[in-house]
């Protein structure tokens, strides 16, 4: 066994002085202890170049009691307002959403900063359950914020609240597809934040919404620029989750333009550097996007690996629909990589998954993919048997357009029996069944001869 030779300090300093890139040194890339010493030496040398390090003046280390008292007072006031708002939020949002603004007019005492904060939090929840409610709730927040007297609160409190309320309003409007109104709202948010002394984090968050709105308005170049600004701002503040969102928007814009290599260049470094700091959900979605891009640049094996990592994360999150969909994508990749046996094995598992989730059409598509593989191997009997199984499945599934799907499948089964089934015919049936959920009245017609 070969003894490991570590660098001494002298050698590392010589390496530092030579200006060589540490990351290219084979030992430093593999030895954690030497790498740590080298990094510290470089950081110390870097700090020694800074003027403030040499400044002999001492700063007063004593905490300021006035500041502490002001902060305590502000935090206590916020708590009081938030408690009051939490107690009255239900009254404000009582009845149908058309009545909420009248409720507010009837209760001028609800017009507080605390109520704006509570409404913003309520919007966040409503976006996932009832988006039009979210728009109505956040309209109340902007109405209150816009009429709050700035003098009643300290420094930038009201400007920040207005900015936050208008940003959330922009997002809610974006979510329901009102892009033009969303753009007006996000511009209002940015105007409010622009006057604040500490505003870059808030502006970074507004940039994300602005990038999404630009994307919705097909202003792709603007979306990339704004998302890049968002990423810079949010990274400074150590806001990893939102930073990754900003990078993902940039990447998605590149993917939209089929620039998969460019998108990968954005996402791969983020995944490598920040994977341990990302939430499982954000990490899984990032990996799924990476897999799409890897496939786009022809790195099918890489795409399979990324997809499998995403699947693992979706499993830990217990999101079965995402797990099965991601596994279905893997089967496509395996087929592209020529790993047919693995693909078939995976397809059976995916089919079972869709069936468990009562996703009849998705299960049928998987069977038709299997049929295509069997057909390429000349296994007509297996194809015919699969079609009959699918017909039985649709008979029992009770989906409205099931009979139409059964007609198409019977056609495929008959063609298999007559040995006239071709991959094109299977594709045709696949395409038809895929379109049924959105066009349930569509009749099946065999392809033209």
């Amino acid at each position, binding site marked *: 066994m070969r003894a490991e030779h570590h660098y001494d300090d002298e050698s590392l*300093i010589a390496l530092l*002085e030579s200006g060589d890139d540490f990351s290219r040194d084979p030992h430093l890339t593999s030895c954690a202890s030497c790498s740590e010493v080298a990094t510290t030496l470089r950081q110390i040398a870097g700090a020694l170049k800074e*003027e*403030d390090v040499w400044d002999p003046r001492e700063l007063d280390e004593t*905490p300021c009691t006035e500041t502490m008292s002001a902060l305590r007072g502000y*935090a206590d006031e916020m708590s009081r307002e938030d408690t009051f708002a939490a107690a009255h939020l239900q009254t404000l949002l009582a009845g149908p959403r058309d009545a909420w603004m009248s409720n507010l007019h009837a209760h001028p005492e609800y017009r507080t900063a605390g109520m704006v904060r509570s409404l913003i939090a309520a919007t966040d929840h409503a976006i996932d359950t009832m988006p039009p409610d979210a728009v109505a709730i956040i309209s109340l927040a902007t109405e209150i914020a816009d009429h709050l007297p700035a003098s009643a609160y300290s420094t930038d409190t009201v400007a*920040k609240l207005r900015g936050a309320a208008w940003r959330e309003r922009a997002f809610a409007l974006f979510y329901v597809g009102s892009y033009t109104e969303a753009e007006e709202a996000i511009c209002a948010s940015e105007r409010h934040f622009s006057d604040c002394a500490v505003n870059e984090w808030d502006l970074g968050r507004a940039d994300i919404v602005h990038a999404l709105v630009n994307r919705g308005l097909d202003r792709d170049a603007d979306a990339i620029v704004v998302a890049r600004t968002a990423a810079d701002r949010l990274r400074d503040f150590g806001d990893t989750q939102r930073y990754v969102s900003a990078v993902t928007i940039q990447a998605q814009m590149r993917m939209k333009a089929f620039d998969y290599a460019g998108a990968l260049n954005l996402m791969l470094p983020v995944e490598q550097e920040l994977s341990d700091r990302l939430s499982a959900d954000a990490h899984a979605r990032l990996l799924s996007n990476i897999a799409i891009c890897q496939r786009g640049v022809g790195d099918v094996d890489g795409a399979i690996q990324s997809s499998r990592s995403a699947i693992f994360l979706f499993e830990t999150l217990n999101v079965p629909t995402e797990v099965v969909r991601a596994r279905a994508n893997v089967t496509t990749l395996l087929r592209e990589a020529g790993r047919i046996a693995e693909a078939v094995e995976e397809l059976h598992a995916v089919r079972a998954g869709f069936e468990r989730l009562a996703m009849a059409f998705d299960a049928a598509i998987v069977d038709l993919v299997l049929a295509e593989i069997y057909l390429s191997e000349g296994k007509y009997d297996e194809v015919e048997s699969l079609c009959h199984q699918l017909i039985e499945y649709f008979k029992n599934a009770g989906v409205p357009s099931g009979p139409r799907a059964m007609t198409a499948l019977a056609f495929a089964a008959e063609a298999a029996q007559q040995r006239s089934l071709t991959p094109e015919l299977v594709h045709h049936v696949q395409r038809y069944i895929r379109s049924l959920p959105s066009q349930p009245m569509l009749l099946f017609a065999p392809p033209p001869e």
Partner: protein
Amino acid sequence: MRLKTANVRRSADRVSERKVAVLEQNAIDAASNASRQASEKKPARPAATTPVIEPLIPNAQPTPADDVETLYLQHRSLLLYVACRKFRVPETDAENLIQEVFLSFLQTGTSIDKPRAWLVAAMCNASRHYWRASGRTESLPEDFNDHTDPDSHSLNDAFTMRMTVRQVLKYLQPRCRETLWLHYFEGRSAGDVARELQTTHRYAEKLIHNCLKRAREIYKTITTVNR
């Protein structure tokens, strides 16, 4: 070009060799620990033999006011350093900016993963705003508008390192400090350092290496104590 005045050099030379008993970073940690212990302290309860009615007050849970005070005590020194040393904000105004930063922190309305990183970035933001608002742009550092540090990708790590290295310098012999000042701050070559210190090129090289090595040893001692 970075501002490098003779005044800075003279000041650096005047730094005494005294041992600093409690270092800046230690003080931050000590303050934070004391505060944390205070907020985690639970009210003493006598052993009960008969059913006891739960007291309504005091509440053992730290309030938002406790939390913000703890954060203030933990990070004030670093934020003051950022404002006064990087952005040259007068110390008298820096405290107001720190208050502004903490008020903004309270208003985020969401949980912040890395409060120190957030606060340092906010302090840079507030300092830049301070100078813009007063219409002054001269005599400011050339990296005034820089955002993420390209080497460390973390402003707060870079400032913490600079605060610690500042402490390291206090422990070094004057000759070592001068060598590091000449080579790293002034960017002089080993040959230049040799001429300045009236010694040989080879010895100057050795001196640069030894002084940096010594600086790392002191740095390690300081940070190990902190951990």
